[in-house]
């Protein structure tokens, strides 16, 4: 499942569904709203493009790391501290591929998927600066 959505997901269900034939390792990355003196976080996406980018990233990761299954669920809307922002589930035959695939996906998302986060504080809000100033050099 590749999705940009308001709703949370059941990670236990995702893991069960990820165990395709040949699976020896499943890695879950769960990005969480961190309590950096904020009240909430607000997420916004250029949805069509972001979903397409997530699909491209999942495809690239699957090929490069021989993954057997990939889920990427990125949430949008207002999220409280501790809530899931991004859940990535990958399954592979062996742990090396599973870890490398998971890491590839999160770095690619940080670098190039049009999603933005605003930290809401008692005094207003601040847009989280991206880790990659210029975004991804090219977009398919």
């Amino acid at each position, binding site marked *: 499942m590749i999705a940009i959505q308001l709703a949370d997901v059941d990670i236990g269900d995702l893991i069960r569904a990820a165990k395709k034939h040949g699976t020896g390792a499943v890695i879950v990355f769960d*990005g969480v709203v961190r309590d950096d003196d904020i009240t909430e976080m607000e*997420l*916004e*996406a*250029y949805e*069509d*493009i*972001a979903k*397409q980018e997530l699909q491209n990233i999942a495809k690239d990761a699957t090929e490069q790391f021989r993954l057997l299954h990939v889920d990427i669920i*990125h949430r949008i809307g207002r999220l409280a501290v501790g809530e899931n*922002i*991004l859940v990535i589930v990958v399954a592979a035959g062996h742990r090396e591929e599973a870890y490398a695939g998971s890491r590839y996906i*999160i770095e690619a*998302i*940080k*670098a*190039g*998927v*049009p*999603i*933005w*986060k*605003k930290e809401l504080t008692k005094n207003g809000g601040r*847009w*989280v*600066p*991206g*880790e*990659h*100033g*210029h*975004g*991804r050099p*090219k*977009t398919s």
Partner: protein
Amino acid sequence: MTVKIRFFARFRELLGTDIMTDVVAGMMFSSLITTIAKKNPEGYDAIFDEKGTFREFVILMKNGKRIDIADAAKTPVEDGDEIAVFPPVAGG
């Protein structure tokens, strides 16, 4: 000839989004955004530097394809285009 302009994140807060606008044939990407952004000085300032060129971190898209800042002045907009202008991404 109508195009849709989408701003995101801080640019959206300053300039709005999903702006449907009529343009004349031959209008270039950068001219269109300059015109729209001038409606709010703070919004203009967020996107353009003092020379009136896109700030280097600004990301431009036309129908989901990235447009280099260097090409924005010679990229025409066409009827039905979806134009997007946004700051660096910060998802994940």
